[in-house]
């Protein structure tokens, strides 16, 4: 039965969950460092965006770091990741370098997509990271497809397919849910619910707000869960349940992770402090910041000190600035490269690629 959207319970000690109990001090510090690196990458990219060094949109992940870091930290060899346009955090979490990510923002050939994708379109298939997709919910059938391929090949794995709270009203998402449950696909839809689909709050965009968004999975007979994103232990423990279900039963799950973005929908969002109050934003930053809360947790466990944390922030800031220097010093793609990467057969100089005219400019 549908649960009412509950106040997040704090009485469960997720630290004792097996998936967390096995974490070493180094593991915990690494999770903190990953979140810190995302935050610093985003603040530095914002700085250069505002200096006019980048084109297009910049959708920042600041405030949501625990979602990508917590969930992706659970992934193994045959687990795959696909997300929407707010994709920098996932990219760094799968192990992409700041250099390639920053250079992509600057439109340089050293970028992860050779400057052809931009902020919304990061990819690293060698790290099981399939983008980086610009159209809201457009990636959700693709996520089902990655899971379909795993099942077809008989591999024990899953696909973590991320979407925002605004994406749940797109038809493609519902079609993907139906297929996932109908065909027992090992896909986990992770709704990163930051409360706003661009400037429209959840209450103004999604029906039946009192039960939350993940609960719609029930219409398809699918398991679902609602997770407090500010608690990294909880994110990991409860996401693991879905991963186990995918791995062991080949079945899908929808999980909704409550989170918050401090910045606008994109940096171009002029109304970021109009459709929500400054006080609301400040409250989240002061009381619900996942990075601060995880740091405090680790301080209380005696794993890090405040000084360690400050050093980590400084180091990540320097890494991001170095990435920006790398990006600025890199070349733009050559004009001759505009036509590369359109057709596999052309790029690989095959007989098919050399038969008939492919380009018509």
């Amino acid at each position, binding site marked *: 039965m549908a649960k009412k959207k509950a106040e997040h319970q704090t009485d469960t000690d997720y630290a004792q969950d097996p998936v967390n109990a096995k974490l070493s001090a180094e593991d915990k510090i690494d999770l903190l460092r990953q979140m810190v690196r995302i935050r610093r990458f985003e603040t530095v990219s914002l700085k250069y965006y505002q200096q006019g060094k980048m084109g297009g949109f910049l959708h920042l992940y600041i405030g949501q770091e625990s979602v990508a870091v917590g969930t992706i930290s659970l992934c193994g060899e045959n687990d*795959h990741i*696909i997300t929407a346009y707010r994709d920098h955090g996932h990219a760094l979490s799968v192990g992409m370098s700041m250099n390639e990510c920053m250079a992509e923002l600057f439109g340089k050939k050293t*970028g*992860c*997509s*050779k*400057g*052809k*994708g*931009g902020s919304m*379109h990061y*990819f*690293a*298939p*060698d790290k099981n990271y*399939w*983008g*980086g*997709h*610009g*159209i809201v919910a*457009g*990636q*959700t*059938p*693709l*996520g*089902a*497809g*990655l899971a*379909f*391929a*795993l099942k*077809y*090949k008989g591999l024990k794995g899953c696909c973590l397919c991320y979407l925002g709270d605004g994406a749940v009203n797109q*038809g*493609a998402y519902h*079609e*993907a849910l*139906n*297929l996932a449950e*109908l065909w027992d696909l090992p896909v986990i839809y992770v709704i990163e619910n930051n409360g706003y689909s661009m400037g429209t709050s959840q209450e103004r965009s999604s029906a039946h707000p009192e039960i939350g968004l993940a609960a719609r999975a029930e219409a398809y007979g699918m398991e679902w869960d609602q997770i407090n994103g500010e608690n990294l232990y909880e994110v990991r423990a409860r996401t693991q349940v879905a991963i186990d279900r995918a791995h062991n039963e080949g079945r899908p799950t929808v999980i909704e992770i409550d989170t918050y973005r401090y910045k606008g929908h994109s940096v171009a969002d002029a109304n970021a402090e109009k459709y929500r109050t400054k006080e609301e934003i400040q409250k989240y930053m002061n009381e619900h910041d996942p990075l601060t809360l995880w740091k405090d947790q680790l301080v209380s466990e005696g794993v890090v000190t405040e000084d360690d944390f400050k050093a980590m922030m400084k180091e990540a800031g320097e890494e991001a600035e170095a990435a920006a220097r790398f990006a600025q010093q890199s070349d733009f793609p050559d004009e001759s490269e505009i036509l*590369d*990467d*359109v*057709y*596999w*057969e052309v*790029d*690989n100089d095959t*007989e*098919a690629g050399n*038969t*008939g*005219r*492919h*380009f*018509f400019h």
Partner: protein
Amino acid sequence: MREITYRQALNEALDEELARDENVCIIGEEVAQYNGAYKVTEGLWDKWGDKRVIDAPISEAGFIGMGIGASMLGIRPVMELMFFSFAYVAFDQMMNNAATVRYMSGGLINVPIVVRGPANGGTNVGATHSHTPENIFANMPGLKVVSPATPRDAKGLLKQSIRDNDPVYFMENTLLYGEKGPVPENDELPDGELLIPLGKAEVKKEGADLSLIAHGRAVITCLKAAEILQAEHGIDAEVVDLRSIRPLDEETILESVRKTNRAVYVEENKPFCGVGAQIASMIQEQAFDYLDAPVLRISSIDSPAIYSPPLEKKQLPYPELVVERALSIC
């Protein structure tokens, strides 16, 4: 040589590719237990089973997108659209995802998918089921568009499309499914199988006086028109079949026009920015000095597909119309 139908030719292509590569699978509405809405996949589910031939719910955006995602990870799905008109339901997946993911990833990903199905008018099913989107999809770099007119081409092009490592949108025609034509047995072929490359046009009938250039069923219309032109007017028309629209074999077209000095493009597509517009532009640019007359285009009458059966026959190009227009420049 034996003669089989266009439908059987497609069926053979699918069967052979299922046998060749275990990553090839067929997904679509009614393709498995129902044996295909147009029976193109008849018998394949019985032979290959649930894993390889999969009935999808009526959910084009979902299952086409799913196929695209699976192809990124090395599966080679052949997706059937019961009507290519339903591509419009899956448009975001087919245009934004299949066509651009390679580019936006800087070449890290490819999408070896085939989306196939009938893309034609002329069957009195009204505008929603009669779309001819070959020009729309051929407009998008990253996509390939194929439109076979004969059983032989249908088989050879489909097999090649399944082996292609880029997304191929393979547009068939329900009015051709039952048409028979010569298709060699595999043991009659030097390589033991029929493969026809994309990007190779074919001269379906040689001629000296006029080039009728076409794709899809309009090729058959042109062949009939050529017979009338010869018999009644002593005009020897050449018929050039594009077979694949993108990639495009320009040289075969130009060679024909340089020989005949007159060209008419015939298609069942709509005229505005149709395939014929591309070809006419190419001919005037590259064979201007050879032309003795303006390049003509014959296409669908420019309204949505009309239902009324006798009128729909008139809406699409028919042999007598091609003859009439051809005579105007001969």
